[in-house]
């Protein structure tokens, strides 16, 4: 009997082929198999024949929405900067999306990076994606040569061992605390919907850190980011980071220095996270792609928690609502103000 993900893969291939054959879309963004165990390659498929390359498994950890704006642009007819917009509707692009990825697409639509009517979402309910790092940590220094995926187990094989481990144990932290695993935008449903998870506390890691003293939190911050090599994989893999010039690349003025200085590195991470405030869907891509395994997701998760607590908004859940930082309420909380309470002017 095929596993759930084998069935999903089959459906993705069939739907992608159908969409490309009947001309509904010009490209499909999905995953192809990787060259190492537990890796996959993001893939943009443009012909029905290539659809056989598409796969789906429990290691699809990179948010594909990152590729959406560029792929949409690539399927437009080429034109110069001064040429008029072509008449008629532009070609569409299909994209495989789980809960958090579909929410990223919603944010991209809210921010006018992506036109809703040009996207066909192949919605896949996420059963949680496995962290390669967690699996490798379980096996110490022993090299993993093959991994076989079952619905609930992983069979890990090396040169001289073969072990079965529980899949959920090695699922990424963000997936374990995820409350919306099913896509919020679905044009073509792939596989079975996954029900909302009623997690007791999606912010459990943030809460734990908040319990520490200020000095303790500062110690965590300095240690966690000490290994950063400033490769910007976290930024570049993020579907929300699409500024033509990032703040770290600004020269006049230069906000952040560029070498491996602890202050500059820290500022980069604070500001990067802050720029995702109210937009981050906790897809975990930043943390996953980091070659040094830095948990920068802690910062965005903290911001997610505050946005939810202060303004009652979860990013990407309401396509028609404005983003939390592009709107306001008259009575937004302001306990953080220096002259509050006491000045007594706010209530007027």
């Amino acid at each position, binding site marked *: 009997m095929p596993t759930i993900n084998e069935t999903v893969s089959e459906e993705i291939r069939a739907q992608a082929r159908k969409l490309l054959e009947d001309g509904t879309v010009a490209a499909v963004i999905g995953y192809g198999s*990787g*060259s*190492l165990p537990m*890796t*996959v*390659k*993001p*893939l*943009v498929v443009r012909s029905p024949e290539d659809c056989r390359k598409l796969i789906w498994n429990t290691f699809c950890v*990179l948010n594909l929405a*990152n*590729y959406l704006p*560029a*792929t949409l642009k*690539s399927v437009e007819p080429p034109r110069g900067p001064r040429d008029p917009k072509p008449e008629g509707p532009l070609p569409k692009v299909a994209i495989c999306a789980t809960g958090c990825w579909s929410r990223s697409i919603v944010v991209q639509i809210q921010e006018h990076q992506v036109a809703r009517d040009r996207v066909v979402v192949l919605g896949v309910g996420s059963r949680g994606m496995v962290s390669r790092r967690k699996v490798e940590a379980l096996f110490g*220094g022993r*090299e993993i*040569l093959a991994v076989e995926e079952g619905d609930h187990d992983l069979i890990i094989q090396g040169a001289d061992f073969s072990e079965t481990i529980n899949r959920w144990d090695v699922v990424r932290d963000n997936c374990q605390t995820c409350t919306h695993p099913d896509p919020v935008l679905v044009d073509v449903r792939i596989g079975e919907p996954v029900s909302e998870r009623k997690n007791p506390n999606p912010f459990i890691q943030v809460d734990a850190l908040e319990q520490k003293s200020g000095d303790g939190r500062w110690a965590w911050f*300095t*240690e966690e980011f*000490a*290994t*950063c*090599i*400033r*490769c*910007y*994989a976290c*930024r*570049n*893999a993020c579907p929300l980071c699409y500024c033509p010039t990032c703040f770290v*690349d600004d020269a006049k003025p230069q906000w952040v*220095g*560029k*070498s*491996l*200085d*602890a202050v500059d590195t820290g500022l980069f991470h604070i500001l990067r996270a802050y720029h995702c405030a109210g937009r981050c869907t906790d897809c975990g891509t930043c943390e*996953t*792609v980091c*070659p*040094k*395994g830095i948990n920068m997701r802690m910062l965005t998760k903290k911001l997610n928690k505050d946005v939810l607590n202060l303004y009652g908004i979860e990013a990407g859940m309401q396509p028609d609502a404005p983003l939390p930082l592009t709107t306001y309420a008259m009575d937004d909380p302001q306990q953080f103000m220096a002259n509050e309470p006491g000045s007594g002017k706010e209530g007027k």
Partner: protein
Amino acid sequence: MKVFKVSSVELDAMMQEWSKVHRVYAPVLAKQPATSSDCAPGWRRVDGGSALTLSTGPTPASVKSFFFPQPETLLTYTLENNHPDKGLMREPAKSKKMQVVVGVRPCDARSVLLNNLPYQEDPFFQANRQRTALVGFTCEQTLSTCFCSQMGGSPFGSEGLDLAFSRTQDGFIVEVGTAKGEVLMAGLDLAPAEESEISALASRRSTGGKADATELDTLKGSELGRLYDAPMWKSLGESCINCGACTFICPTCYCFDIQDEVVRGQGRRIRYWDSCMFPLYSLHTSGHNPRGQKVQRTRNRFLHKLKYFPDRFGPFSCVGCGRCVQDCPVNIDIREVMSDLLAVE
């Protein structure tokens, strides 16, 4: 060449001895906690007591940062008003204190020799080279991502190492490759290695040698235009996210940027690692960018390693350590790129 016999216990003692006079560094296997900042990420200062542990395959961080620190201060100056030397550049004193990097793998040792080609005339790199001794360990086991022998190296190679340790039945034999190696061995009372051990190593070298490097060498003769215009770059450039992970973990990527930093009137001109993957790398002030597209930048990195560098200096600018293969967020595998390039008509 002198070859000695060393037991594991003696090795620890040797490191102890060295750490009394030199700065001794060893790789960190797990994620590194914040330590003193006198050491590159991924390495730790050995100051007595701590034994050496090595994992299979390359060290987590390459040795690049010992020769090409991130950042290196090129010049310092003051911008204090009314200071007579305001704006006058000074060269910082270069440290001459010997540093000993223990636990280096043959791939990384070779990377220093490759980087030395463009840096032949660079005073900072050369000063760092002068004062750094590499104590390496040949690989009795390799990872599936290792491909040093394809790139002209060998898991048993001692090229570029001042001291090369190779495992034997009951410890190590150590080959003293250079004058710096002699300095490290001076005063140590060690038995010479046995003839059988030396010949065993020699035979391992000859069997696990450089045989499979020939096929790739045909790339060097390929016409640039043909490789440059290959259709493979389009899909590769499409999946690449243009982060600098591969370039920064790569032992042979050596580009840098230069910048001035001023804090409260004190300034310095530093150079720090840059990556041709970043759009800013080639951006003109006019706004024109010769490599403005992602695909152009991805292509530049691979062609630099596999064509531009060999055109200038001879060897490929890759030692086959496989770090980029393991850590690329989107699984761009340079081995696949090379075989695709070889297949280009």
